[in-house]
């Protein structure tokens, strides 16, 4: 998608078939994609609407439903950017906006984060080289301990990814002063902050002579692969998700799992990795390669996978919870012990539902563990 394309350009192709409306997880409670597009086509101003913020940008309406392949998520992003420019902020932040505040702070050129403060020594990293690992906000989630009571361990994901890469003979670059990818501010319409972050990160990676960036997070992957080139013209790195990297190594016969890892797992396709980037098979291939591991597919998987309910820290409410309940019920019904996903936010949201406080909670999802893909592979490798 070109940056120059306006919302009107994107939706010009729509012929109002309504396939998207039937697919939208929130189609019952907000204006469906078709209606929003129709309003734009009829020249109405949607910037003041709450529904543009309610959209999960999961792209379920686009892939594989839309016959004209209109990228509705992209359309919403453009509309949101316009709305913010016009000063309409009809959304409700969650978590007191702390994560976006942190991102905005990071965008300040005078502030440089120190991401290697708690880095374990056995995960070998270099300062310069061809391959880099993009850590993103994971370290930050862990350091502020905001989610430690949910049983997540975000701090171990990046070191584990480095250990896996080390196992394959790669010593990746991990930048000490790398900043957030800016995904959440971008999808909240804050182009300005995003631009700053993108430019900063591009320069930082260029300085380290990086040619290829590996990501563990689905959102970082999408942002680096699609949005960075749109905002920073000289962003010419090869972006690859860790699962794709591992799948390639398996094809080359370089990655073998030494021992059995007897678990039943199911895989949740995050919207950003799946429908946005089209990566469905690589994580599955890696998991199927693990001896002893059984992969059970959910009713709704791959293109049809349901969203986790909230995107970019906006509008968490009953509807978001209902979606999560549906998704975890689906996952639990497969009989899997572990729900694997590649997006830390999905993990966080599922864990939030699992960790409802009190004895009297009406829903019980304690049977299933939510785990990041990297953690699973690291466990299978015996780290």
């Amino acid at each position, binding site marked *: 998608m070109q940056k120059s394309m306006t919302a009107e350009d994107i939706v010009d192709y729509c012929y109002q078939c309504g396939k998207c409306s039937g697919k939208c997880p929130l189609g019952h409670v907000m204006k469906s994609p078709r209606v929003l597009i129709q309003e734009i086509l009829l020249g109405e101003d949607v910037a003041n609407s709450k529904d543009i913020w309610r959209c999960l940008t999961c792209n379920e309406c686009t892939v594989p439903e839309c016959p004209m392949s209109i990228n509705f998520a992209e359309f919403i992003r453009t509309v949101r950017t316009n709305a913010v420019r016009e000063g309409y902020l009809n959304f409700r932040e*969650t978590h007191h906006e702390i994560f976006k505040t942190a991102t905005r702070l990071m965008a300040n050129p005078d502030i440089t984060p120190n991401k290697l403060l708690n880095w374990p020594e056995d995960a070998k990293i270099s300062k310069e080289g061809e391959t880099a690992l993009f850590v993103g906000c994971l370290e930050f989630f862990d350091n502020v301990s905001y989610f430690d009571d949910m049983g997540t361990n975000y701090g171990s994901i990046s070191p584990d990814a480095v250990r896996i890469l080390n196992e394959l003979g790669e010593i990746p670059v991990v930048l000490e002063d790398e900043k957030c990818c800016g995904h959440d501010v971008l999808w909240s319409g804050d182009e300005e902050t995003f631009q700053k972050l993108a430019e900063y990160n591009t320069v930082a990676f260029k300085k380290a002579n990086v040619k290829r960036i590996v990501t563990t997070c689905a959102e970082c992957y999408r942002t680096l692969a699609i949005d960075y080139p749109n905002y920073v013209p000289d962003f010419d790195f090869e972006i690859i998700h860790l699962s794709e990297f591992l799948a390639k190594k398996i094809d080359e016969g370089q990655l073998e799992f030494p021992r059995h890892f007897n678990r039943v797992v199911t895989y949740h396709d995050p919207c950003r990795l799946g429908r946005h980037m089209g990566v469905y098979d690589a994580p599955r291939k890696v998991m199927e390669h693990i001896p002893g591991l059984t992969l059970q597919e959910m009713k709704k998987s791959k293109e049809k996978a349901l969203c986790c309910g909230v995107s970019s820290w906006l509008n968490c409410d009953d*509807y978001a919870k209902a979606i999560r309940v549906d998704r975890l019920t689906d996952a639990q019904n497969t009989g899997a012990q572990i729900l694997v996903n590649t997006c830390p936010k999905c993990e966080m949201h599922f864990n939030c539902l699992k960790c409802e*406080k009190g004895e009297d909670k009406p829903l019980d999802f304690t049977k299933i563990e939510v785990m990041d893909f990297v953690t699973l592979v690291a466990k299978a490798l015996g780290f």
Partner: protein
Amino acid sequence: MASRLNESNNAVLVIGGGIAGIQSSLDLAKLGFKTYLVEKRPNVGGGMTQLDKLYPTMEDSLYYLTPLFGDLLENPNIELLTYSEVTNVTGSAGNFQITILKRPRFVEGAKCDACDTCATVCPMVTVDNDFNVGLGRRKAVYTPFTQAVPKTYVIDKDICLYFNANKMCKSCQILCPKGAIDFDQKPVETQVDVNAIIIATGVSRHDDTILSKFGYDFENILTALEFERILTPNGPTEGQIVRISDRQTPESIAFITLDSSTSQKAGAIKQAIRVKEKNPNIECFVLMNGTLENEVFAKFIQRSIEDGVSYIDGSISAVEEDPDSKDLVIQYEDKTKETNEIKVNTAVLFDKLLPSEDMTQLASVLGLKLNKKGFFVKKSKSEPLETKNPGIFVIGDDLQQESIIAAMTDVNAVVSKIVSQFAPPELWTPKAFVETEYCIGCGYCREACPFYAISLQVVELELPVVEVVGISLKTRKAQVHESLCRGCGICVSECPVQAIRYGDPETLEQVISALTE
């Protein structure tokens, strides 16, 4: 303040319909609290109704009580639950759920006009009248005394022939002019929600070991309450002073205080004055350790001396009975540690009363502990009315008990405690409130609240269900109990979806609109 409180849903449960319970119900009801007054006996008034006169004013106890009974019946905020017991309590301060079991009276309150026909015709006169402390007898259908509130009669199921002899006797039902007798009444369970519980069960039990040590087994030695009944015009002897063994007027009476509490001494002096009023020829001895050093009672003692009451300064050591005359020989140690004795016709013992044995059950229902003597264990010396369970208060059980003055002091204290805890002036703390549409029921706020002011209500969401059709989403919604919220704001910082906010919603809206403009 009263009008503001009237709008709120504050409610209080008062257990025990004695003078402390009645007065606290009236005070709280006046302040707008919905008050549930639960009494085990068929009538309210408690031990005070059994008294003749009150010291030091020598006022008739019923003269004092009857206007209170009237207020009790008229106040719309008071729900009077006599012949009832608390059977279950759940929840915590600010949000107790109470189950009250109302035992059947077998007489319909709305119809009964207390004409006494049923009691006149009832053939069963076998039971010691507990109102007269075993000195008289009563029928199976009865009212404890004429002015009892509520006035409705009650049938004692344990002795009534209808229940115990195969429905043999229905005399009262046949003869009742109003048709008020209903043998088919069943126990009724009521559920009420209250903010706080006041235990005002008072004291009624004697310590038997102490009584028998000082000769209570002898016929002519009575407890204070028994003698009080004898003095009272509506008592078993209709106010005639007699001794139990021969039903003759005694020539001398000893009033013996077993320890040096004010209430016992004052009670003894009061009874001595009453005896002198009724019959100046009876010799009265008041045996007490030291004198009553209290300014309030100075005139009272002066009056007793003028009436001819003799004081003996000493402490009782033993009581013996003359087997022929049934007279009592009381041995005491005077100030000089010499043992003396006096011989009297009858004697009255003033002992410490203890809470009734039913308290064990009540304590287990309320989750409280009793000490060795059967009193509820209090929280601390600085909070003498509070129990270890927040929101449950105990009044009128001070060791100086039996004193109505002490009970009234407790009532005033507990009323101010409850008003300040559960209906504090609106302005002094901002309260947290939940925006229900955003609450996802995760429960973090409830975990975080240091005052247990947040509870979660399970609700069925009528959402257009998103994907897997057929799942109805049961979720929870946080609820802030305003009476418990202290406005600390911890919940606000815990909420992941910013559904809990803090302060006055209208003011917040104004601030937000002012900032965004």
